[in-house]
């Protein structure tokens, strides 16, 4: 393989300049032209987009299915909420602290959870977030229990105005997405991807998979926590449901719907999921039937998500580029380069009836 790196480099320019500029312009335009209701929904979507993209750092890039992302999301929201309730600190201080808190929680949680693999990892992270969920529920005097904390004065008056809140959220979301994207294309991100594609080989080359995964977990936790704080900006409330397993499932759905192998896939998924969910719940009492059927159809017929349609080949190209640029001498992938299964390595896939053993 002796292709010049000019191609990928130009691709990088496209990705790091053109895409963000187009997106920011679109967001500004939308914030200006949309009705208040839709601005507010878009604000919610942007928070969820950060949540989903941060989760996808683990899912799509690290091959780690964490079912405990709600622990960070909810912690971020509760940090802001409890700061207000108990007069710990002003909103801005709490807001800035949320990623730190999320990172610290992720460090503790990841240190234990990353000792396990695949499904057990998913279930152990789930157990952690359910523990948080129960703790918030039973400490009624401290957290207001299952009712949650609701007050418009939880956030500064300036942010309570929908458009200001939207622009603020859009700004935070764009910066967060940019940072997350930088992480994914950094040497760290490339090694992370290598650990997803072949853990054993990465380990054989002296990469500490555990440390890389832990760092990814911490980064993901920090941004999920920030997304939780953005939820408070949107909803002026925090309640235990934000820590429940269904909340952990949301960013995973979004990533799958939008496509976990494209950086912006989860964000697109957040947009589609949230608008779809709202539309369906508002227009039909049978929303469960409709949503369930839609989910099933996506999973059966578009398993790599909607963004996958556009970007699967792009992804393959980027992977090849990543291999050349980042792995410095890792042996070439065996053909065929089948879509990797994020939870299972290829080894597990091979044990499923009728699947290829390359």
């Amino acid at each position, binding site marked *: 393989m002796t292709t010049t790196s000019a191609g990928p480099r130009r691709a990088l320019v496209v990705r790091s300049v053109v895409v963000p500029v187009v997106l920011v312009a679109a967001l500004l335009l939308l914030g200006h032209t949309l009705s208040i209701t839709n601005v507010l929904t878009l604000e919610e979507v942007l928070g969820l987009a950060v949540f989903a993209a941060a989760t996808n750092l683990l899912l799509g890039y690290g091959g780690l299915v964490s079912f405990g992302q709600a622990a960070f999301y909810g912690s971020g929201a509760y940090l802001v909420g409890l700061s207000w309730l108990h007069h710990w600190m002003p909103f801005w201080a709490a807001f800035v602290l949320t990623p730190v808190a999320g990172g610290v929680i992720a460090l503790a949680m990841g240190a234990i959870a990353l000792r396990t693999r695949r499904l057990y990892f998913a279930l152990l992270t789930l157990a952690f977030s359910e523990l948080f969920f129960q703790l918030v529920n039973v400490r009624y005097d401290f957290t207001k229990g299952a009712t949650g904390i609701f007050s418009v004065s939880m956030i500064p008056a300036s942010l309570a105005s929908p458009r200001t809140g939207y622009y603020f959220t859009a700004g935070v979301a764009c910066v967060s997405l940019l940072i997350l994207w930088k992480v994914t294309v950094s040497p760290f991100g490339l090694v992370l991807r290598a650990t997803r594609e072949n853990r054993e080989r990465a380990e054989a080359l002296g990469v500490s998979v555990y440390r890389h995964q832990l760092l990814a977990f911490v980064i993901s936790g920090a941004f999920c926590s920030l997304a939780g704080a953005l939820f408070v900006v949107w909803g002026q409330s925090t309640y235990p449901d934000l820590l429940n397993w269904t909340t952990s499932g949301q960013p995973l759905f979004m990533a799958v719907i939008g496509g976990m192998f494209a950086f912006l896939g989860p964000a697109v998924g957040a947009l589609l999921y949230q608008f779809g969910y709202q539309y369906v719940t508002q227009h039909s009492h049978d929303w469960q039937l409709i949503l369930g059927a839609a989910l099933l159809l996506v999973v059966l017929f578009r398993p790599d998500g909607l963004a996958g349609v556009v970007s699967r080949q792009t992804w393959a190209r980027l992977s090849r580029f990543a291999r050349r640029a980042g792995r410095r001498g890792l042996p070439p992938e*065996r*053909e*065929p380069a*089948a*879509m990797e299964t994020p939870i299972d390595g290829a080894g597990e896939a091979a044990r499923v009836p*009728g699947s*290829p*053993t*390359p």
Partner: protein
Amino acid sequence: MILDIQDLHVYYGESHVIQGISLEMDRGEAVALLGRNGAGKTTTMRAVAGLTPCARGRVRFDGQDITRWPAYRTARRGLSFVPSGRRAFDTLTVRQNLDLAARAWRFPRRGWDVARVLKVFPLLEELSGRRAGHLSGGEQQMLKIARGLLANPELLILDEPTEGLSPAVVKDLGRWLDLLRGEGLSILVTEQNALFALAHADRGYVLEKGRIRFASDASSLRSSDEIRSYLGVARLA
């Protein structure tokens, strides 16, 4: 003719792995399928056994078109595929592995039952209570072949049987193969170890990038310098 493959094509996703392979073998023959790693040997055999779908082409077994048959049907029909690697049912005991295979289907009786298999492989008798996951590579290979025989096949397909085995066990393996040939069983072996395969086969095919590069009888393949250098076996000889 026991096996007749015509213009077989197989894809993995978008990559065209097998690009038109034709292969014929007669009843009672032992045929070796050779080639480097990734040449498509295993894929061809998997496609024949029904484990991988064929995109195009036709596979006939004993005059019957089995191209689209699922693996269990080809197995019941008498085509026994012994996969490569450590593929015993590791949570079951050796005996359970054998009983499972013996009772999987009411196979036409062609003379193989557990007692006879244990007579051929007496070591398995000793190991019968052991969990298959705890067996050595050679023992697992023996177990897999025994399992394959219990399907009472007319054609036994062995995928990379020598992979990971010590030279002593490889020698045993050769003995078993000759024994089975003596029984009149048709055997198709894929191998990277060309010398081993050709030593126990009547004919051989050499695959390269999903196509058949050479086909000839075993002795002439063995002696051909071109083949030897192509397969990189000169050093071994």
